[in-house]
């Protein structure tokens, strides 16, 4: 339905005085200091009129003016708000997409299609984004969990990523709230240059980039989001495999790394293996382990064990990190041994406890 038509229809149904008008961002802000960003479309009440933002960028936007809104109930106003937010993709979404965005959307759709196939095809020449997929790039998969945003985020996100990487970035929408980001290699080399005397591994550099990017996205744009990244790839050869791997990484990370938002495939090998075990077997194993004692998951011992494993079972470092005396840590570990029969200072028992804790997270044990 064209813009004029749906507006006429709305006026007819509601019997209300509704106008569509352009506003600049400054005019919009001046309307009222108390801006209610409703769940659907931003709304302002001022001077006996309700203003609802429909679409547009910060310098120019389209708004709906509803005069004498007292003739409408709150429910009706909320429904208009909802309608506007749902109209937006049709009104200003893909049809208004730039050439680059259209190409990225087409590539994203192709990748999604290939993910369902047993064997991915070669990428068609027309989808290589002008040959840019032949260069080595760092792949990131970004999944947005929540944001108060209602705008189409592609342009804004791309701009943000370009500022962050200080170079051109390929942003490929896969699904709603899921994007593949292909960044240039320069951050990897930049982060390793001038970085002190210690040689940083590629894994460490990538982890730092991931953490930095996540923090920037969370605070500057997205809110809650999960990010997975991997070693550089040549997208023309392995874009589909890379997306599959990063999706699996996020899926495993969400289950096993609760509280963490940046997930790295090389840190999830054991988790991948464990998730392949049938659920009934996993549950049985956990039940057996916990039948002797559930001391492992006492909050204090859980934090102690997690820190102990992160720090490679180093007693001194763990005590330092936990801000406790070394003897206190040894006491806790002795108590664990006494309760469970497992001494995590021994490699064999440490592996067992690590597995028990990982499986405990994913088996819905009451």
């Amino acid at each position, binding site marked *: 339905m064209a813009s004029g038509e749906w507006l006429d229809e709305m006026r007819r149904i509601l019997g209300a005085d509704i106008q569509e008008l352009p506003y600049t961002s400054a005019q919009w802000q001046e309307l009222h*200091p*108390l*801006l*209610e*960003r*409703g*769940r659907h479309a931003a709304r302002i009440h001022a001077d006996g009129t309700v203003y609802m933002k429909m679409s547009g960028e910060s310098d120019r936007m389209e708004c709906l003016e509803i005069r004498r809104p007292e003739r409408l109930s709150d429910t009706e106003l909320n429904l208009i708000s909802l309608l506007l937010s749902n109209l937006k993709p049709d009104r200003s979404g893909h049809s208004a997409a730039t050439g680059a965005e259209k190409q990225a959307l087409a590539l994203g759709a192709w990748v999604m299609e290939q993910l369902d196939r047993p064997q991915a095809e070669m990428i068609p020449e027309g989808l290589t984004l002008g040959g840019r997929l032949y260069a080595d790039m760092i792949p990131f998969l970004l999944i947005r969990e*929540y*944001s*108060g*945003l209602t705008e189409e985020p592609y342009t804004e996100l791309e701009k*943000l990523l370009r*500022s*962050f*990487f*200080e170079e051109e970035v390929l942003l490929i929408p896969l699904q709603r709230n899921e994007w593949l980001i292909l960044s240039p290699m*320069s*951050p*990897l080399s*930049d*982060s*390793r*240059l*001038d*970085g*002190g005397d*210690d040689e*940083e591994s590629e894994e460490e*550099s990538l982890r*730092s*980039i991931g*953490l*930095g*990017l*996540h*923090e*920037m996205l*969370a*605070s*500057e*744009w*997205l*809110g*809650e989001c999960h990010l997975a990244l991997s070693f550089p790839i040549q997208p023309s050869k392995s874009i589909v495999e890379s997306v599959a791997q990063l999706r699996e990484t996020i899926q495993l990370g969400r289950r096993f790394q609760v509280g963490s938002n940046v997930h790295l495939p090389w840190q999830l090998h054991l988790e991948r293996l464990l998730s392949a075990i049938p659920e009934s077997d996993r549950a049985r194993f956990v039940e057996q382990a916990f039948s002797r004692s559930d001391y492992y998951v006492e*909050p204090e011992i859980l*934090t102690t064990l997690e820190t102990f494993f992160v720090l490679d079972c180093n007693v001194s470092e763990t005590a*330092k*990190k936990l*801000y406790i005396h070394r003897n206190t840590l040894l006491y806790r570990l002795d108590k664990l041994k006494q309760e469970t029969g497992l001494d995590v200072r021994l490699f064999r028992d440490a592996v067992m406890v690590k597995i028990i804790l990982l499986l405990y997270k994913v088996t819905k044990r009451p």
Partner: protein
Amino acid sequence: MAGVRLEHIFKKYPGSDIASVKDINLDIKDKEFLVLVGPSGCGKSTTLRMIAGLEEISEGKLFIGDRLVNDVAPKDRDIAMVFQSYALYPHMNVYQNMAFGLKLRKFKKADIDKRVREAAKILDIEHLLDRKPKALSGGQRQRVALGRAIVREPQVFLMDEPLSNLDAKLRGQMRAEISKLTKRLETTTIYVTHDQIEAMTMGDRIVVMKDGLIQQNATPEELYNHPVNIFVAGFIGAPAMNFITGMLSEASGSVRFKAPGVDVILAEGKAKALREKGFVGKEVILGIRPEDLHEEPVFLEASPNSIVTATIEVAENLGHEMYLYLNGIGNDTVIARVDGRSGMRDGTNVKLALDMNKIHVFDKETELNLFEN
């Protein structure tokens, strides 16, 4: 600058029947330093993340200043966050890290430069501006993360366990620096920690949380001296408050508290309150802080009605003070904090007097402090 108001805030995750954060009401004043403290899983970080806009608010209203911000994106809330990970942007130098947020907001170059250099001066990192994060120590990185927040000149700072990745010495140092900094900048600050020492030393006000609920919202002194329940009493203070389960009884006009190895007479004011509430003849929990058990002869002489005898299981001498781990007072180990020069030894018997004016008595059923509720 602005205050922050939370009205009946709830957080429920999809697929879960139980709310992780339940009916939080808080009014954080402009320029106030508020600490959210509690054990892991108590909902403190979730509350902070809802204020930051990183997590959706399931129910309730959140105001920053007079503005309702429930559905405002994080970047538009005029807040600045410092996380536990203090992840810096590794490919940018310190200057660029601090300038990035301002650049995004299209500040003029000269303004950016002025703000970054001022913040760097405050944090004493001017000499590090050209360095990449990898070449910085943990403490220096933490300062840069703070600098990134300061340059924004936000209405509110949100800090989520920002010191937990630092070692003990640096943590103590940064604790004092953050306190000084926020006082100097006069910015409203909401600070999350599980460390009660951080909470006590930094907060103008402390909110203790457990199981998604506020247990107590008070000044550090109030919280320490007047905990409303056993949880708060046990959580605030290190070593923690001692708890002894026993019976209250009345004899010869005095209210006595009796437990294995304990038979003491309560101070009249406290006895009166317990009588009025009908707790005489009932089982209760007596709480006493380690520093309120005294071994000094003068105190013992002055307190004949509150003397207990115990065996020292372990005496930990920290130099300026000594912790005595005692058996024979109630059924559990009791800790006393005494003078480091008291010469106490493991395995010996000791006489101690309880300061009966400082005791707390808790209802065994509700765990509420009977003097505070």
